[in-house]
């Protein structure tokens, strides 16, 4: 009796344990014993990290799983997926494989060709995989996060090297020199503007003075004319009238001169602007000269050229002195 009891208990425990382990394993494996599913095959050149059992989603909803992955002829990989029986495929369907999270999970997405992400690589894969005679869907692998990170890393590296090159070319001393140059040009421009302003004011004052002087002279001339007219009646020769006429003519000429001077004063403002741009150009030329660029810069910055020129002048001076002293030594004029 005890023996039979032991046997029953043992059998129950063993069968119960096997049933429990099997049930939990099948549940975790998402096995679907007895459930009807439709099978679809897609072909790829490469399937990335997809494994049997990965989820298949349609418009973000889980609708099946990857059943089988196998190599096929012609360099293809066939992926068979099972979908719930009542699931309808989108028009013109394709199968995309991609990472579903950052933790190595992949999934297969059934979508319409019009919903494929805009990527030349994906389009090329789908075009390559299209037209299977057995009716396999075209498939493509989306770039995973590692590839994206790699590309981003490459871009970051390029930017870093460009920044490094710029840093080498535009170092501290270059920045200091540029800043000093700008400051110098600014100072010089301010000085020039101040000078032009002062001179312009002076010219304005002169023009105003000349105009008021001319007007005073005109008024004096008119008064004098009236006096002369009265005096003319008292004289018989008319000399005084002639003098007055000449004086009036001189006054008119002075007025014209005053107006011309006024015009010159106005045009001086324009000249100021031109002068400023000329000074700016002159400043850039001077900077080049100062850096020893160009012929003039070489002449200015190279002391040897100065010494050579100086010694040349000394030689020429001695030569002229010698020519004066002994002209026949250098010039022989023979008429016949």
């Amino acid at each position, binding site marked *: 009796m005890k*023996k039979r009891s*032991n*046997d029953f*208990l*043992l059998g129950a*425990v*063993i069968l119960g*344990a*096997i049933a*429990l*382990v099997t049930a*939990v*394993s099948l549940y*975790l*494996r*998402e096995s679907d014993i007895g459930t009807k599913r439709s099978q679809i095959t897609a072909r790829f050149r490469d399937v990335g990290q997809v494994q049997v059992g990965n989820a298949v989603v349609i418009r973000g909803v889980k609708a099946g799983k990857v059943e089988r992955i196998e190599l096929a002829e012609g360099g293809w990989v066939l992926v068979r997926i099972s979908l719930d029986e009542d699931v309808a495929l989108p028009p013109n369907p394709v199968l995309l494989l991609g990472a579903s*999270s950052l*933790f190595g*999970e992949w999934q297969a997405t059934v979508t319409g060709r019009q919903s494929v992400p805009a990527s030349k690589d994906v389009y090329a894969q789908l075009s390559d995989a299209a037209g299977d005679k057995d009716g396999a869907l075209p498939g493509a692998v989306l770039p995973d996060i590692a590839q994206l990170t790699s590309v981003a890393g490459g871009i970051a590296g390029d930017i870093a090297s460009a920044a490094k090159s710029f840093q080498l070319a535009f170092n501290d001393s270059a920045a200091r020199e540029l800043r000093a140059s700008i400051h110098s040009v600014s100072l010089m421009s301010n000085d020039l503007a101040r000078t032009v302003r002062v001179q312009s004011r002076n010219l304005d004052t002169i023009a105003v003075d000349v105009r008021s002087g001319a007007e005073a002279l005109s008024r004096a001339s008119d008064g004098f004319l009236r006096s002369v007219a009265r005096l003319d009646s008292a004289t018989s020769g008319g000399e005084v009238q002639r003098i007055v006429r000449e004086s009036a003519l001189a006054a008119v000429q002075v007025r014209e001169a005053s107006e011309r001077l006024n015009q010159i004063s106005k045009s001086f403002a324009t000249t100021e602007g031109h002068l400023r741009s000329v000074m700016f150009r002159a400043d850039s030329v001077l900077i080049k000269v100062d850096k020893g660029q160009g012929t003039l810069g070489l002449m200015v910055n190279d002391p040897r050229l100065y010494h050579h020129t100086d010694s040349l002048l000394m030689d020429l001076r001695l030569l002229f002195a010698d020519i004066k002293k002994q002209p026949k030594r250098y010039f022989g004029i023979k008429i016949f």
Partner: protein
Amino acid sequence: MIESVGRSVRESVEGLGSAGRISLEGVRALRDVRTWGPLLTDQMRKLGVDSIPIGILIAAFMGIVLALLASYSFTNSVPRYLVGTLVQKTVMMELAPVLTGLALAGRVGASIAAEIGTMRVTEQVDALETLAYDPIAYLVVPRMLAGLVMFPVVVGVAMMVGLIAGWWASMGLLDMSSAQFIKGARLFFDMFDVRYGLVKAASFGVAVTAVGCACGLQARGGSEGVGAAATKAVVTSAVLILVLDAFWAVVWLLGRAT
């Protein structure tokens, strides 16, 4: 001190050697089914069925602690559902087989060593030989077969209980939904996980029973010798379980990984 180190090394090697020898003799004695057959059910009940409560207790606490530990370790950047992944993988592949194996090494190994050791020091083993019974077939084979079959049963139950306890802890003690835990548990589940844990458990069962039998058969000198044999059986079994755990990891896991 040097002498004691040398003696303990020699005794350990002797223990392993005698366990291996007894295992080989047990394989030879498998032919004597009429001797060990009637005893197998009793041994399976004693070694397996009676060990299930302790296996369930260990697995339940193991699952709960593991879920809490995983939740504590994961920062905000790690999805919560990976608690389920960690509990599933760790319980099935490592903790359930090893912790249950260690518990059974204490319970079963000591029991076998004490029982057979007592028979040895009271000359019952000699009496069996006198009655033309093969002591290996009568004492060792049913225990080793029981260990081989029942350790995976106990560990299988422990796996499932540990997983269920982790699931319960995730829902009850952590701010996780059932769907989240199940999603994580399913995420990287492979039937290999179950197979790996059960095969390890079977190897632990053979090792624990073989060591227990060997230590018991080598017992000398009365009750003190029986106690020493039981202690030695537990220590050697525990060490052997850890060695076998590393062995399977290197041989099987490393092979799959590469």
